[in-house]
């Protein structure tokens, strides 16, 4: 069972918050000792999900946790919005499917870039995407 060594949260209300989110995640990934490639993958996944929360969810927040599991370090991120929710989760996780103007790579692409991925969504309530990556 992983223990949480640090946690925090920050808002995702505008484009600048996406930039700040990337900076936070880069910092956490570096601290956890991720290789440069793993840092890049994790930051890119975070950027996709932060933008989703902003564009489709109308904004929300990023909650982060630094994890320690034995000698393994990791980072867990949760992107939460209070938007319309996703009616068909299976469809949303199909490559190339997009409800908006994007490429439809955000969710599926982010999932490929991380070790753990969970998507929870309730129509009319909001969406929460949790990702984690381990060193």
């Amino acid at each position, binding site marked *: 069972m992983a223990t949480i060594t640090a946690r925090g949260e920050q808002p995702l209300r505008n*484009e600048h918050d996406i930039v700040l989110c990337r900076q936070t995640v880069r910092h956490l990934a570096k601290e956890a000792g991720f290789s440069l490639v793993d840092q890049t993958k994790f930051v890119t996944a975070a950027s996709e999900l932060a933008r989703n929360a902003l564009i489709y969810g109308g904004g929300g927040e990023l909650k982060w946790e630094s994890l320690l599991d034995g000698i393994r370090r990791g980072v867990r991120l949760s992107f939460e919005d209070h938007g319309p929710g996703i009616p068909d989760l299976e469809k949303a996780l199909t490559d190339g499917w997009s409800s908006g103007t994007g490429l439809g790579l955000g969710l599926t692409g982010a999932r490929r*870039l991380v070790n753990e991925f969970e998507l929870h969504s309730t129509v009319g309530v909001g969406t929460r995407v949790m990702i984690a990556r381990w060193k």
Partner: protein
Amino acid sequence: MDRIPILRMGRFLLVTLQVDMHDQLALRLQDDLTNAIQAKGAKGVLIDISALEMVDSFMGRMIADISGMARILDARTVLVGMQPAVAITLVELGLSLPGVDTALNVERGMRLLERVLSDGDDHRPR
């Protein structure tokens, strides 16, 4: 309002993307660059992303769009300086940047543009 500078190098334009661009800045670049291609009659555009530590699908699409817009305006775009970690991530993300020419650095990008333009096949559809 921030702007990304567009430098002129002979027949070509050079744009250097900096770390952590926000979306509006990226979109403004499309406007500025297409206007610059037309105003200066540029035949080639070099987009230097060596300073970018990550490229997500939004930025990738922006780059692909710019390349497509430039093509219609009779200019070729070469994306230069991509960091290896960015390349690995982009492919895993599922973004292969179809139709975008790449070179390892600005110098090679210039040579690529010069070669392509001197071949005279710049009107040939790809």
